[in-house]
């Protein structure tokens, strides 16, 4: 489904943020990407739907080359859902309109169709009563659930999560993770940048550990938590699991 091969990316002439990153995510697979801040994990996930350009290597998404200038990027991006750290709901639109806009403008669905889909997804994330509110009237956790619903409204073939719970107050993290766990159990292909190791343990198939732009470890979940091979990953794990 997602093939990342030998991706190199530089900011400016000298600062290399991604170093020869290679991995793949199969259909229905849930892959958690973790690592210290500045390790390039957010950059990597943004390369997958070409929100960030990269200079070398290639990424193939469902058979389509992302970094091919001939690729119709908007069309490709519409097929992959993305959830951001800071939710990025559209503050000038009501919740239901946040869910409908891209359905109508990108997929060409009728307003009635889009509304039906939007309402169904709002119900799913338990926010039906907030349909006519504006994003600023919702809590962070609620906003992030709306953001997930907004991405799902496009019927994506895969979902990308870029630190979806990092900007949330602790008591709101679980309501967002619950939605993600459900999604994973339904068989959605997911690439998740997160530090939530509980989530990784529960639903991930594989864990990728990144450090200074490199994929240091790419292992089945049990292998990763059982005995990470690299010293760096061991250190990281002991630090975030010890408290």
């Amino acid at each position, binding site marked *: 489904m997602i093939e990342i091969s030998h991706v190199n990316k530089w900011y400016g002439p000298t600062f290399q943020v991604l170093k020869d990153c290679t991995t793949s995510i199969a259909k229905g697979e849930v892959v958690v990407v973790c690592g210290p801040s500045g390790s390039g994990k957010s950059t990597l996930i943004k390369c997958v739907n070409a929100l960030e350009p990269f200079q070398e290597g290639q990424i193939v998404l469902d058979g389509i080359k992302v970094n091919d200038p001939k690729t119709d990027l908007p069309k490709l991006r519409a097929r992959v859902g993305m959830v951001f750290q800071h939710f990025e709901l559209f503050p000038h639109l009501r919740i239901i309109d946040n869910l409908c806009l891209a359905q109508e403008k*990108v997929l060409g669905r009728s307003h009635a169709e889009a509304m039906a889909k939007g309402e169904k997804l709002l119900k799913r994330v338990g926010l039906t009563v907030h349909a006519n509110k504006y994003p600023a009237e919702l809590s962070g956790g609620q906003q992030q659930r709306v953001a997930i619903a907004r991405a799902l409204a496009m019927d994506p073939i895969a979902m990308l999560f870029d630190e979806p719970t990092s900007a949330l107050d602790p008591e709101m993290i679980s309501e967002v993770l619950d939605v993600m766990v459900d999604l994973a159990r339904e068989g959605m292909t997911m690439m998740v940048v997160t530090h939530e190791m509980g989530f990784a343990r529960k639903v991930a198939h594989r864990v990728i550990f990144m450090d200074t732009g490199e994929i240091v470890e790419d292992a089945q979940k049990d292998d990763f938590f059982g005995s990470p091979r690299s010293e760096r990953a061991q250190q990281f794990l002991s630090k975030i699991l010890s408290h």
Partner: protein
Amino acid sequence: MFSNFDFDVIRRSLPYLFLDGMTFTLTLTALSAVGGLVFGTALALMRLSGFKLLGRIAGLYVDLMRSLPLVLVIFWFYFLVPYIGQWLTGASRPIRVGAFTSSLVTFIMFEAAYFSEIMRAGIQSISKGQPAAASALGLTYSQSMRYIVLPQAFRNMLPVLLTQTIVLFQDTSLVYVLSIPDFLGAASKVAQRDGRLVEMYLFAAAVYFVISSLASYGVRRLQARIAIVR
């Protein structure tokens, strides 16, 4: 002290001052503001686009307009627009352009320079995550601008845009140099016809003051409301 003055001249000329003069002034203000905003937004998008040449052209235009006195631009366009019209339509002689059209074109061109800077600031005030989220949903650049970035930029900048429109409202009085009877022009005509300069100019000042102050007050109220919504 006012015994030598005849304030009845104001009452007598009210219909002319407001039905003709103020109507002209308000129409010119409204149309110039809308036109200037549209053209100004286009200039702002040019400046923010990735195309260096487009940005350079828009930048030059804005700098040029902002470094010329408005009166000069009004004159300039009044004499130039007929020739530009001739060139555009391929007519054999300069086309006749009414004073209203000429001044409207002038104000749109001139105000666009100011509105473009306001809109540019507005667009830059939107966090990068917003267009990124729009792109991630599959919206194209122009859809993202139209549905996500510009509406927010416009809303954030509305108080500043309206304040600039109040300035524009006052600036439209400069069309007197083309002998157009806008509000000030109409007052001036009556003043000179009846020899009542002091009365008429006092009255005109009072009217501009009242309208502008009320409008400014309205903008402040609006600003407070927008601040809460955000």
